[in-house]
């Protein structure tokens, strides 16, 4: 390794240990790779929405499969990979020890990514399971359980071996996210793949799993990062923190009861969608307290600060929108339309991804011992991501509402509906293009930062710039 003549400033990152850098940086890098790949798939899917003939000849890229490819690579490859790695890193730092079980983490991460790669090939060749967010083929699914458990062990050990006796909100959410995914994956696989339930119960179990991914996995991972970053960047304790434990438990206990919101008006007994309203109303408390706790981030400036702001704001907005969409009167107009995609996009991209971007930008320099190679690429990426998310969420949301309104009129044919929403879908395609381009900026920035030959310019820029806020 080339030693720099300028000493890198002492950072907390040394605490994690040199041995951990390799696995963690690889994990982050692969996650960014999946982000770019999912961007390509999302772009293809978006184009196919308004131009059905696009790439129709290719069996591997038929619309249904491309949607599954985009969703899987995004949720498991990018959000899962980056989220788990960031949380493991945060737990290790808060624990105050060098990362234990780094080998487990490394092996887990390798198998996680291999599993996703094999799974994507399987989806493209026709082995997808047809369950939303669980599209990976059967032969890959058990591997994902073991890989996520292996990665989680490192985080769990970091937390259980912590030096301080008390805890902070980040480890609660972080440990919950790490522990609950293997369990939820297993439960979903058993009830859908190995011993499939009968008939419409598969839809119920699949809806439950969707909630588990949202509220038991991705939300805890991103809130773990958000709480940590907020406290670090603001430099003071989070306000209204006494309310935080109850908000955490509310999410864990009540979060997945809202499975029925995907089955409003569906072939299930009425109590299932009603339970969704019941549980989501209580979940509002969680959203309120998270808003109260994390409100200092809205005063932050700088790249990480704005990404964090956007992410937390989107999370709160998602809570409000998803709550409203649980009610039958509103679901009547929004279900089965692009509005559902917009809501999903708001959560996955607007909230989880932006918080993970903030986490990446914050944590990677501490692993590298030097800053990102190009602040320009950083702000370019974040600006593009912000614009892309806003455009696509607004375009899809508007498309969905107009589509829903028109579908209620029985005389309007689907051809007319399609031409009515076409302009919005074109805007969405543009937004996906912007998102892909900005994620490429992130990938380039990451690779350059890794490369030691860029080290010189990176460090000097870091030293001359002031602090973030």
């Amino acid at each position, binding site marked *: 390794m080339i030693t720099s003549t300028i000493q890198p400033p002492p950072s907390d990152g040394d605490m994690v240990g040199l041995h951990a850098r390799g696995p963690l940086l690889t994990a982050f890098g692969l996650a960014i790779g999946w982000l770019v790949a999912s961007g390509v798939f999302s772009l293809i899917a978006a184009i196919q929405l308004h131009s059905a003939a696009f790439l129709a000849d290719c069996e591997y890229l038929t619309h249904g499969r491309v949607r599954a490819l985009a969703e899987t690579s995004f949720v498991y490859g990018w959000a899962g990979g980056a989220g788990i790695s960031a949380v493991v890193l945060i737990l290790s730092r808060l624990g105050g020890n060098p990362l234990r079980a780094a080998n487990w983490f490394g092996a887990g991460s390798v198998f996680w990514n291999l599993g996703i790669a094999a799974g994507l090939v399987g989806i493209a060749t026709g082995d997808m399971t047809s369950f939303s967010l669980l599209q990976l083929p059967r032969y890959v699914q058990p591997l994902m359980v073991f890989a996520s458990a292996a990665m989680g062990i490192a985080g769990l050990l970091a937390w259980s071996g912590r030096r301080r006796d008390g*805890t902070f909100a980040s480890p609660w959410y972080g440990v919950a996210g790490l522990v609950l995914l293997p369990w939820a994956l297993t439960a979903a696989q058993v009830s859908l793949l190995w011993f499939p339930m009968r008939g419409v119960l598969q839809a119920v179990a699949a809806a439950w799993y969707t909630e588990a991914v949202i509220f038991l996995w991705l939300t805890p991972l991103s809130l773990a990062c958000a709480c940590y970053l907020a406290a670090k960047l603001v430099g003071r304790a989070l306000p209204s923190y006494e309310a935080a434990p109850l908000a955490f438990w509310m999410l864990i206990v009540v979060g997945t009861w809202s499975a029925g919101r995907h089955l409003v008006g569906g072939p299930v007994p009425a109590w299932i969608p009603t339970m969704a309203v019941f549980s989501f109303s209580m979940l509002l408390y969680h959203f309120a307290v998270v808003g109260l706790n994390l409100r200092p981030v809205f005063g932050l400036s700088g790249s990480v600060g704005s990404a964090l702001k956007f992410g937390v704001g989107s999370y709160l907005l998602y809570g409000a929108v998803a709550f409203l969409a649980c009610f039958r009167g509103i679901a009547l107009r929004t279900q*089965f339309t692009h509005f559902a995609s917009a809501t999903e996009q708001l959560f996955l991209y607007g909230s989880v991804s932006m918080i993970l971007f903030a986490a990446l930008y914050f944590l990677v320099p501490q692993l590298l011992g030097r800053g990102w190679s190009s602040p320009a690429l950083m702000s370019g990426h974040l600006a593009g991501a912000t614009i892309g998310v806003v455009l696509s969420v607004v375009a899809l949301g508007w498309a969905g509402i107009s589509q829903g309104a028109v579908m209620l009129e029985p005389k309007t044919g689907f051809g007319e509906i399609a031409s009515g929403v076409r302009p919005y879908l074109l805007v969405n395609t543009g937004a996906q293009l912007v998102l892909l381009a900005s994620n490429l900026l992130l990938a380039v920035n990451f690779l350059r930062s890794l490369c030691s030959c860029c080290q010189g310019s990176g460090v000097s820029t870091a030293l001359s710039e002031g602090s973030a806020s």
Partner: protein
Amino acid sequence: MKNGPLFLFGLLVSAVIAWSAIVLGAHGQLGGLTPWFDDGEGKSHPARPTGLAARGQLVYADLGCAAGHTQQVRRPGFGSDQERGWGDRQSVARDYIFQERPQIGSSRIGPDLANFGARKPQPPSAETLLALLHSGSDRHPAFPFLFETRKIEGESSARALKLSGKAAPSVGYEVVPSERAVTLVAYLLNLNSPYVYPEAKPLVRAVAKEEGKK
């Protein structure tokens, strides 16, 4: 959350309880659903899908058709499903008990298909469907890979599609559906849930209110 093991235990218990309540609870209620035997007709409903149709459902699933079509009819008054001719009554759990992998879907870029085999006045013929699947339309993707374009040897096959215009094959060639296309079409034309089970009868609000008062 000082106590590690207790915290982990709490996490798992909460998650298991939620899963049990929703998934196992629903399973307890609906897992044992049997077909409904109609004394008048002497038949039980729903009917099991034919073997070809059952295989077709797997083709539907692996192509991801659920990304654009639902297979769940909403109740009268909740949307315009009945007026669009998608079904006379809402879909209930009993409609799906013999389906290996129900594709109820969550997106209506295209129409609902739950009763596609019973479209009025007439469901599309198999030939029309195959032509649509092969060539697509301006709002439906094409699936040419489900078909084989081959040289005509001797006489053209009885199964060859009658295509015209841009979609037609070059002279001397014919387009023949593969087995996947045939099973998929068989599945689509088999989709029909006509029987009105007691639980599927639409609710008359006034009657319900009266009964509720008693």
